């Protein structure tokens, strides 16, 4: 089995890995106790930098570097992004439900390093159970003196507030999340200013993903260098992958990056269901362009995936087998983005819906010859040049995300789309 940083405890103790008792019994909060006495905030930041931990929320931005951008003005905040809504992704849910104290210890260490005295955990509204478990863990941590005034007698104080979303994917985008946390519509903000300069309540704010921060206790305990020694350059450490779709053994897997896609899908995921042939897969959540078996032997790393014109994103691998109607699959994703567009930007608001209508029409047997060109041109008006990484005519990357499934089916399965249109459009139409 591969090395595990995040999931060892929950696998060893399925009955109570979420409790404070179990967390402490397996060494939990020892790192915090030590760090508060022996380490300065700067030293912790230095370890996180040295770890080369890249964000697990989707963009893969190095956490240590981001922390370095935090403006000094007081007060400032740490916000944990637990909005996890990218279709195909369910790894944060497991971390929240099964090991909330690991996250909380990560939050305390990070807050101590960043000089933060109030931190927020934003959990999507459809996750009441993870939210309850985290809330209970937060209460336990307060009762045990890990949170609140004067944490463990160190003089450092920290409050943690658990905040529940209410059904809006876009709130995963960090500035939309901050608006939502401020009691506003979850509309992404213009950047700059970046949250590290003007975030929550216009104060300097660090936003990190649940998984990113769950790594912090291990990094502080074992040193950044030890983390940096795991996995290939640019994709250090272990990471949670959510496998779903037509894969034989769907689930979350914590793996060291660098293995091939073949190994990930066939070894880890047990291959395609019913022994069917693999048609294609999405390597990193609904926003990512699709891969086909031609790249099965490429390594699973952030940089290689980017080089091949897609991204690891949130670590959601969605497998599609030979039976898949790719137009219907693309429509499912396009419909998602249309439904989840915040509506600010004209191209995203109007474009996603237009694309959805065209695909629905094609699927309903009313496709037109011009539709392929039209689909691609509408995409081009949202993401000019249809290149990777995408250019955008929008404020945030959600708009361009809608392009991925369409360009993917056009690139890899155009004859299927054409056939569907032709079949639908008898002569004369």
């Amino acid at each position: 089995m591969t090395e595990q940083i995040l999931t060892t405890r929950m696998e060893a103790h399925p009955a109570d890995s979420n409790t404070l008792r179990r967390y402490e019994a397996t060494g939990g909060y020892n790192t915090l106790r030590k760090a508060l006495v022996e380490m300065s905030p700067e030293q912790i930041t230095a370890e996180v930098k040295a770890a080369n931990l890249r964000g697990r929320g989707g963009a893969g931005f190095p956490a240590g570097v981001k922390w370095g951008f935090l403006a000094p003005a007081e007060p400032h905040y740490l916000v944990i992004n637990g909005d996890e809504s990218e279709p195909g992704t369910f790894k944060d849910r497991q971390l929240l439900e099964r090991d909330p104290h690991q996250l909380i210890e990560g939050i305390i260490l990070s807050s101590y390093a960043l000089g933060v005295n109030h931190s927020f955990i934003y959990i999507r509204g459809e996750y009441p159970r993870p939210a309850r478990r985290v809330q209970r863990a937060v209460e336990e941590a307060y009762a045990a003196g890990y949170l609140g005034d004067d944490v463990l007698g160190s003089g450092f104080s920290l409050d943690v507030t658990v905040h529940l979303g209410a059904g809006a994917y876009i709130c995963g985008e960090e500035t939309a999340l901050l608006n939502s946390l401020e009691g506003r519509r979850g509309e992404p903000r213009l950047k700059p200013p970046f949250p590290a300069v003007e975030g929550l309540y216009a104060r300097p704010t660090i936003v990190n993903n649940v998984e990113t921060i769950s790594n912090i206790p291990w990094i502080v305990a074992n040193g950044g260098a030890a983390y940096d020694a795991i996995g290939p350059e640019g994709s250090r450490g272990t990471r949670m992958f959510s496998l779903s779709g037509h894969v034989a053994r769907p689930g979350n897997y914590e793996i060291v990056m660098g293995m091939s896609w073949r190994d990930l899908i066939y070894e880890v995921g047990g291959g395609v269901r019913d022994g069917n042939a693999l048609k294609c897969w999405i390597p990193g959540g609904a926003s990512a362009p699709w891969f086909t078996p031609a790249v099965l032997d490429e390594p699973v790393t952030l940089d290689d995936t980017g080089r091949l014109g897609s991204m690891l994103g949130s670590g959601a691998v969605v497998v599609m087998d030979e039976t898949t109607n790719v137009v219907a699959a693309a429509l499912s994703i396009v419909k998602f983005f249309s439904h989840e567009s915040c509506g600010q930007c004209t191209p995203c608001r109007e474009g996603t819906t237009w694309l959805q209508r065209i695909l629905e029409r094609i699927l309903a047997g009313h496709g037109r010859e011009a539709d392929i060109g039209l689909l691609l041109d509408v995409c081009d008006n949202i993401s000019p040049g249809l290149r990777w990484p995408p250019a955008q005519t929008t404020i945030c990357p959600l708009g361009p995300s809608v392009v991925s499934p369409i360009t993917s089916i056009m690139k890899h399965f155009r004859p299927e789309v054409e056939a569907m249109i032709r079949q639908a459009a008898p002569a004369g139409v």
Partner: protein
Amino acid sequence: MTWPAEIQARAEAIVARYPEPRSAVMPLLYLAMRQEGSLTLDGMRQVAGYTGLTSVQVESVASFYSMYKRESVGDYIVSVCTSISCHLLGGEEVLGAVADEAGVPSGKTGADGLFSVESVECIGACGGAPAVQVNYELVEGVTSESGRRLCRWLADDRPQVVTSDHMQAEFGGMRSFEWGPDESEGATGPVPAFGPLGTSGQPS
């Protein structure tokens, strides 16, 4: 209309959790929805009062989010995921079966106020697709058949509290991951079950 004293106290406690009152809008909207079963004009006005916003500012926020329901909903909201992973494994069929069994088309609430049925975007249960939520409590690995049974159970038993663990054991299949210990708490109504909102409970 004003809220009962106990609810007012809860609202004040929620406001106190945040550095700025406006941040309390979202939890207060849940609280308001809880009072009347849906988010009424009066509910939004109450929230405006606690947060220093105008009513329309509250409505603007509320209407942005899918989970705040401005029309009255059933005792049980059955949400069926049709996003990509569930789509690939038959989410739409499950939706059809559930809607049929509940006698309520997707996106609607039955006249008797028992069920609301909706198709929802990814609920983070892709490893256990197709996934369904009842009052936001999750069941994974649902089939058309088990989805129908789930609806029948709700209609026959009218449980006061629905819990994921119970539903998973009775109607679920493949899960995204091992869930760990049983969670005794569940939802006491069509508002997500979260401690500080007073919406969770234990089955008797």
